[in-house]
């Protein structure tokens, strides 16, 4: 992801911007952004909510909530069906969201965006539709050991169905992909390399352009799981060069239950429908049916219209704030969190120091992540504890679980301090760190 990396480097060296971002309490721009998220004014267990679980799901800004509300109050009808005005209005809102998202990720055409229930369904769509058509017995598919279960299980099931074989790229001790191992596996001429842009378990930012180039060099297609990247980075599928890119709305300020699959139009054209029923056909007779055009042939049934409209609004919100502005703020938080967390005695941080996002996976002495989470929760601090749907990665590090604190555009440096104070509280509860 050369573009983003160079952007990040510029941002980090821009000390004035960091200085400004650091002063969240005096920075009016930041307050305007944070005030957009009413949930952040809540108290939890008698303490102001410190929400550090955005990698699991982000909070929603008012304008997304209001957009969904307005759609449902004023614009709702079924899409692509009626001739009546309301149906046309609803269809326009739905297709406008598709267009917003297509432009946002640099798609050649809005028909390259298929709406799904989220990243998981996007990957399942490719595994079922493309996989069942083009993957044969003995074919190989490359995944990595840092994949979320949603980018492992659909391929395992496809492999069972077809007799294909799965190989997993190894992960280095500091939580990066072992590129030599990738090269070794690519010599086996796989059909597909499916991998994550950013690790949900460790925050590792993978060298996606490099991986795509190496995969294409041996004739493999590429699918990128963008669930953890799209909320933070400016995605441009043309620059990435990949063949499929999957992402979810709810991790990027949008509603749950909706996501997208970007795919190359020529691939979508030759792929059969994923599910079948209404919406995805052009003609049905008792003898058979003809499929609708891309992308509608992949969107069977009445879609999550209000969700899609909210998704479009969330993307507009991120664009209005500016992903470069978000990157400056998050880089500053990341730097500060790294500094504070690495200074905590007994804390083990997983993942690389560089080439990472603001997702921090750690263990703290012998305090189990669940206990840590319970203690932090009593102080109003929400983190994730567990295997993060990353069991192969946990096995790789010989652990069963980590605590994970993840930051987003609305978090503050004070919340990094609150996390560290919460860790001190945990040490006190446990009578010290063993």
């Amino acid at each position: 992801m050369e573009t983003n990396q160079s952007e990040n480097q510029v941002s980090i060296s821009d000390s004035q911007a960091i200085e400004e971002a650091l002063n969240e309490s005096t920075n009016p721009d930041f307050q305007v952004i944070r005030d957009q998220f009413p949930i952040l004014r809540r108290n939890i267990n008698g303490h102001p909510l410190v929400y550090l679980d955005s990698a699991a799901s982000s909070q929603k800004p008012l304008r997304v909530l209001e957009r969904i509300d307005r759609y449902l109050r004023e614009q709702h009808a079924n899409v692509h069906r009626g001739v009546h005005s309301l149906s046309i209005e609803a269809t326009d809102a739905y297709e406008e969201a598709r267009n917003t998202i297509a432009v946002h990720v640099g798609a050649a055409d809005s028909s390259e965006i298929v709406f799904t229930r989220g990243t998981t369904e996007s990957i399942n769509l490719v595994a079922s539709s493309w996989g069942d058509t083009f993957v044969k017995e003995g074919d190989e598919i490359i995944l990595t050991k840092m994949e979320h279960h949603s980018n492992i299980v659909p391929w395992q099931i496809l492999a069972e169905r077809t007799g294909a074989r799965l190989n997993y790229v190894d992960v280095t001790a500091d939580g990066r992909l072992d590129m030599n191992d990738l090269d070794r596996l690519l010599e086996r001429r796989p059909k597909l390399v499916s991998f994550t842009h950013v690790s949900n378990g460790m925050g590792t930012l993978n060298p996606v352009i490099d991986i795509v180039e190496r995969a294409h060099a041996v004739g493999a297609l590429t699918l990128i799981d963008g669930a953890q990247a799209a909320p933070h980075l400016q995605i441009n599928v043309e620059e990435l060069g990949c063949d499929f890119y999957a992402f979810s709305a709810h991790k990027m300020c949008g509603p749950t239950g909706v996501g997208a699959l970007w795919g190359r139009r020529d691939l979508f054209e030759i792929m059969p429908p994923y599910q079948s029923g209404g919406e995805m056909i052009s003609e049905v007779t008792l003898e058979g049916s003809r499929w609708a055009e891309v992308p509608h042939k992949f969107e069977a049934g009445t879609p999550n219209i209000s969700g899609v409209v909210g998704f479009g609004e969330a993307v507009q919100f991120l664009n209005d704030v500016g992903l470069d502005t978000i990157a400056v703020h998050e880089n500053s938080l990341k730097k500060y969190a790294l500094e504070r967390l690495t200074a905590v005695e007994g804390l083990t941080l997983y993942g690389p120091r560089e080439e990472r996002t603001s997702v921090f996976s750690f263990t703290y002495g012998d305090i189990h992540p669940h206990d840590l989470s319970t203690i932090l929760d009593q102080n109003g601090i929400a983190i994730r504890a567990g295997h993060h749907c990353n069991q192969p990665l946990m096995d790789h590090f010989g652990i069963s679980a980590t605590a994970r604190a993840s930051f987003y555009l609305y978090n503050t440096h004070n919340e990094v301090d609150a996390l560290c104070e919460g860790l001190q509280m945990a040490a006190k509860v446990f009578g010290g760190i063993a």
Partner: protein
Amino acid sequence: MTDPQNPARTDREIPSTLNTLYRELILDHYRKPRNKRALDDATHAITMNNPLCGDVIELLLRVEDGRIAEACFLGRGCSISQASASMLTGRVRNKTPEEVLELSKKFTQLLHGDESLLSDSDLGDLRALAGVSKFPVRIKCALLGWNCLDELTEGEVLPAESP
């Protein structure tokens, strides 16, 4: 404020709910688990995990003359699951399957907030886990080892010894 150089020091008071959850006895069982070892002459063994968090407990029993002569456990997990399993191994010794089932029921009621059981001496140390009732999401942690036991007893695996 806290001292960033000394993470073990904080001036903030520990909330009382946390003190009732993390009793010293629980932390003692967590850090020095009793009977956490393999049992070579086990007659019964079962492993259960919590798929949500990856915690695992293997319960090993040696049953003689219809009573549990020895109970051990292996596995990994949070302080609540490990302390509960450690205490379990102490409380079920010399009990019949019926008695074990009765104990398991009482313990489950305790975790669901039945305060009358706080005076039940049959539960012994297990009463230290009563604070879990204020943390419903952690009840399944406290029950992980007991689920193994229930599986062995309710499944009528006990008391018959395996060949």
